[in-house]
């Protein structure tokens, strides 16, 4: 299965890598990752350094994105904000991918009541609009970065579980899995060694697309005050702060929103490209 799938994918790879779209997406993602890793090197200011002599300064050479109401350098906060967005995206998507992948593949492999119960539970999570469920979870557990990650992971869980289940149902009837079963291998071994590696590609593609959605949801939670708490710089809470100063300092709203837009655009383009690579029918 994996060999069959990877042969045409590898044939499509060079064309995909040279497409302007993929280059743009990859470039934007690389930019966000580099900003997050190299934050302290890229800027002379700290994200929470206040300068009361430089409050609400418009963009200038000293502060290319201007300053906020506490005199903090907006460029610095945008760069540090990348850390929060990427960490939330990565951890929440990985958590839902691993948990959703495991429970979805168990549902698809075991079938029967286990499948019914697991998938009905996933349907219940799916019955809530994503943002609302994330909001309700963080409201109950309290606003924090960790709870925002947990909330986003729960929201994305059914997506991965459904994909894992559908893929497992295809793979479990393939000859090599039947052969392992006939040889007496147990379900844990078959799931871990034969099924999970073969359903990894579509899960990763979905993961890259949900990465973008996770960044947006985190920014919504932060915007509402339910994500990482001040003074931690996040793109969402920067935009929230900007609302009170739209007339006086519109630049406060420009750059944090632009950072979310470009990063999400990058992940969306990369996700689309990966999907075209592994499943050209949907392209």
């Amino acid at each position, binding site marked *: 299965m994996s060999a069959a799938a990877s042969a045409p994918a590898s044939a499509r790879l060079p064309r995909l890598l040279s497409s302007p779209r993929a280059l743009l997406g990859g470039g934007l993602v690389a930019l966000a990752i580099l900003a997050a890793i190299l934050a302290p090197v890229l800027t002379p200011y700290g994200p929470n350094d206040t300068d009361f002599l430089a409050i609400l300064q418009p963009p200038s050479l000293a502060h290319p994105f201007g300053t906020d109401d506490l005199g903090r350098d907006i460029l610095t906060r945008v760069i540090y904000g990348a850390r929060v967005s990427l960490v939330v995206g990565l951890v929440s998507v990985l958590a839902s991918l691993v948990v959703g992948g495991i429970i979805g593949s168990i549902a698809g492999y075991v079938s029967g009541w286990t499948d019914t119960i697991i998938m*009905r*539970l996933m*349907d*219940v999570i799916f*019955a*809530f*609009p*994503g*943002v*609302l469920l994330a*909001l*309700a979870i963080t*409201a*109950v*557990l309290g606003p924090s970065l960790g709870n925002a990650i947990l909330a986003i992971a729960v929201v994305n869980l059914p997506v991965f579980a459904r994909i894992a289940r559908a893929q497992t149902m295809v793979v479990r009837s393939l000859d090599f899995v039947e052969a392992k079963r006939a040889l007496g291998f147990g379900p844990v071994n078959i799931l871990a060694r034969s099924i999970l590696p073969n359903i990894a590609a579509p899960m990763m593609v979905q993961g890259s697309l949900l990465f*973008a959605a996770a960044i*947006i949801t985190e*920014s*919504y939670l932060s*915007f*509402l*005050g*339910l994500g990482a708490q001040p003074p931690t710089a996040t793109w*969402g809470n920067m*935009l929230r702060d*900007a*609302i009170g100063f*739209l*007339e006086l300092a*519109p630049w406060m*709203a420009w750059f944090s*929103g*632009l950072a*979310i*837009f470009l990063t*999400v*655009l990058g992940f*969306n*383009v990369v996700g689309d490209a990966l999907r075209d690579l592994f499943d050209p029918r949907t392209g």
Partner: protein
Amino acid sequence: MFCAWGGNLARQLVGRLVSLIPILFGVSVVVFLLVRLIPGDPVVALLGMEATPEAVAALRARYALDDPWAVQYLAWMKNLLTGDFGRSVQSGREVLPLLMGALLPTLWLALAATLVSLLIAIPTGVIAATRRDTAADAFASLLSLFGLSMPSFWIGVLLILLFSIHLPLLPASGYVAPGEDLGRFLTHLVLPAITLGTALAAAIMRMTRSTMLEVLQADYVRTARAKGLPHRTVIWKHAYRNAQIPIITLIGIQFGQVLGGVVITETIFSWPGIGKLTVDAIFARDYPVVQGAVLLTAGLFVFINLVTDIVYTIVDPRLRLS
């Protein structure tokens, strides 16, 4: 023939309704647990810190709070089914009228956003498909990618900056009921509807384009062209009509997502709907309102998905007869 259709449709409808029962049960359990999972006593969560001992005792009895969770759940459900959603900790008002008061502004906003998205998405998607691989197609795909990647709150803020601050044409926030002053209602509605409609438009446009591309390859479209029918008739009467089914499905799904999206849009524009009510209640730790608002929104979401299923079964004769 008609009876067979009707019979099939009724059977499918009953099947869908039955399949909703476990989901609605699950949703109610999750909402029930919301308040129970808050650290500390749920009585404090439901009544606030300053509740009188009498009020505490009454609440304990009404929700069976000294009994096991299963009994508590049944008591809670019984109250819900009689329209008793509890009282707001903050205002002391009953939750149900609060929710009903906020529902109408939310529905106006959701409908307007859907309308905005259709006005943008359908023509753009059809043009992109009929002019495949041209500059118009590339521009339309770029537009949809941008729409999908822009967080709605940023769109909202940019619209306020442009249309309320730089060109003071439209109000930045607030709500006027349509019965009070229709003109002012509409001017207040424009910016939130565009904000919420943009992401929706992007997804519908993508779907319109891909479905139209598929339909344009079909034999009946080729036949319509061969008959010498005008291009416009072929596109809108033959191709687009058949491309509608997946588009309707997506609109239904997206309309449900709009109910989640209103939380952000209503907060930015101070639109007094369910979304703003939920956020305000979260910050006021007004858990009866949070619980009621989440339950109502999730219930609406499930209901809209059901209506979508029914609509596309009616629209597509193949599904009716299958």
